[in-house]
């Protein structure tokens, strides 16, 4: 074999090994989600799944089946309704899709304005957009809590959609304007000469041509809203309106009798949707992220 081929093989080997090591914690989580507490308590830790029924944890959580042992033995820190993760998935879906639709619809026009129009204070506003992306939400949870309470939207998923949208619009405007700038202006110009209004240009030409970019932005928005925890934990009080991250967090309580098997499985369920999104749309997400960070 030539030296070049050997070098290539070593490269693939090293890379695969490193990626495997990086991924091993997640793989470990998946492997153990197929075991029940009995296997999980064994030392050394086992890899083989539960003998009779590997998927029992998933059925308990997703289909509200009765587990093998009595759940009342566990601390009431985890309310029995929380075991019904399905509602959490539904809530997360509503919030994620709602937020994405609102943000995309609101952000297209401002993004186009930043992309094409020269106006006073444009650079200043671009700086401001960039700064807003770094905003730590933790510092406004108290005011938001007071505001949402006053408007009577506590425990309402709409509150989350509104808050997430307000937070994500700077991201979306930035990302979309970067994509809109890649559309050749000549196409739009000829449409305007033919008598189209700016709005028609935007909806009929720019957005269809920038569809991959809009898709990438949408995927990014879904990812962020799906994973968000802080606001959801503070605004949602009743278990039936918990989003998925909040339900998963109820399993991480520090009380001694945490049901480890259900805890691990809830983690895997929580991670599935974003992981699948990332695996299928990695190209768009990556171009969206780096386009935003590097101007």
């Amino acid at each position, binding site marked *: 074999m030539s030296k070049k081929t050997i070098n290539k093989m070593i490269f693939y080997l090293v*890379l695969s090994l*490193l990626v495997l090591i*990086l*991924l091993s*914690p*997640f793989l*470990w989580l998946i492997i153990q989600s197929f075991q029940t507490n009995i296997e999980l308590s064994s030392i050394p*830790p086992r890899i083989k799944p539960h003998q009779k029924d590997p998927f029992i944890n998933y059925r308990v959580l997703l289909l509200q089946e009765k587990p093998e042992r009595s759940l009342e033995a566990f601390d009431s820190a985890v309310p029995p309704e929380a075991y019904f993760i399905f509602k959490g998935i539904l809530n997360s879906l509503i919030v994620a899709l709602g937020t994405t639709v609102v943000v995309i619809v*609101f*952000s297209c*026009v*401002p993004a186009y*304005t930043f992309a094409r*129009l020269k106006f006073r204070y444009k650079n200043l506003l671009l700086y401001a957009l*960039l700064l807003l992306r*770094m*905003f*730590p939400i*933790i*510092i406004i*949870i*108290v*005011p*938001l809590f*007071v*505001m949402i309470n006053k408007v009577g939207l506590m425990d309402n998923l709409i509150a989350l959609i*509104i808050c997430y*949208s*307000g937070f994500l*619009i700077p991201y979306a*405007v930035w990302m979309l304007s970067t994509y809109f700038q890649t559309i050749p202006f000549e196409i739009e110009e000829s449409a*305007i000469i033919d008598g189209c209004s*700016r*709005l028609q240009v935007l909806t009929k030409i720019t957005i269809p041509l920038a569809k991959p970019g809009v898709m990438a932005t949408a995927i990014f928005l879904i*990812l962020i809203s*799906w*994973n968000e*925890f*802080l606001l959801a934990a503070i605004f949602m009080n009743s278990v039936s309106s918990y989003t998925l*991250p909040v339900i998963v*967090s109820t399993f*991480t309580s520090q009380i001694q009798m945490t049901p480890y098997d259900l*805890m*691990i499985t*809830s*983690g*895997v369920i*929580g*991670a599935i949707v*974003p992981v699948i*999104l*990332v*695996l*299928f749309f*990695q190209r768009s*997400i*990556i171009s969206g*992220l780096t386009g935003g*960070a*590097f101007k």
Partner: protein
Amino acid sequence: MGKFFSTKIEGKIWLLLNLPAFLLSFFILLIPLIYAFYISLFDWKLTKPSKTFIAFAGYRELFNDPIFIKSFENTIIYVVWVVFFTCILGLLFAVLLNRNFRGRGIFRSILFIPWAIMPIVVGLLWTWIFNSRFGVFNYLLTKMGLIKEYVPILSSESYAMYGVIVASVWRDIPFAALLFLAGLQAIPDEYYESALVDGATKFQVFIRITLPLLSNTLMLVVTFETMHALKVFDVIYAMTTGGPANATTVLSWYVYSTSFTRYDLGKGSAIGIIIMIITLLFALLYVKTLYRKVEY
């Protein structure tokens, strides 16, 4: 705006269509920020009937608060370690992924998985790995002969922070790798080629050419990751809830525990404003680096 819009009415409609986005962000981000500053000037505890104006006395009290000092120290420790390891490991993966090889896209998507997982699950995952009775981390250490008995990690005052740091680094590596990759790919191939033609080794190329050209990117990644590390919350909630004995209480966690466990809204907002100022400093540094032209 004359040539941009065909009619004046169109221009006005366009302005109107820009409004919803700006109004929404204004109400969700800027108004609460001002309100948070306002609250920080009061002594407002939900346990007392009304709030009293104390101006900046709240901030002065903070500097005498031992837990605040501790959380400040913890934040520095956390940020320094996380940014350091995230950057080094991120750079490593970026360098490896910089070549054009078959299957590169697959490796990139797999690499991206830790970042996609929600921080709560990341915390949960590592809590389980570090579990003092059944965790695989203790098992591996014992098997390698490094320790004789299982060691508690997240319930130990000395080690809990490092457990949290490992979890955060694990999640952030893909993102840093991505930023570095973008920076690496901006370097034209001719630089490498001419250096190799001149007889430089791969290592020399890396030290003398790649690293200096990456300095801008490095600065960007460091400031970005610093601001990101200042925001940490979910991982701490899932792993340690600030304990044991405030060992993992960082500034952002202290805001939460002060506001929602102690119901001291004034103090919580004051800590938040301090976080905001620190973040702003790094954000300005970030923007300045972004717009600096790199000399080749």
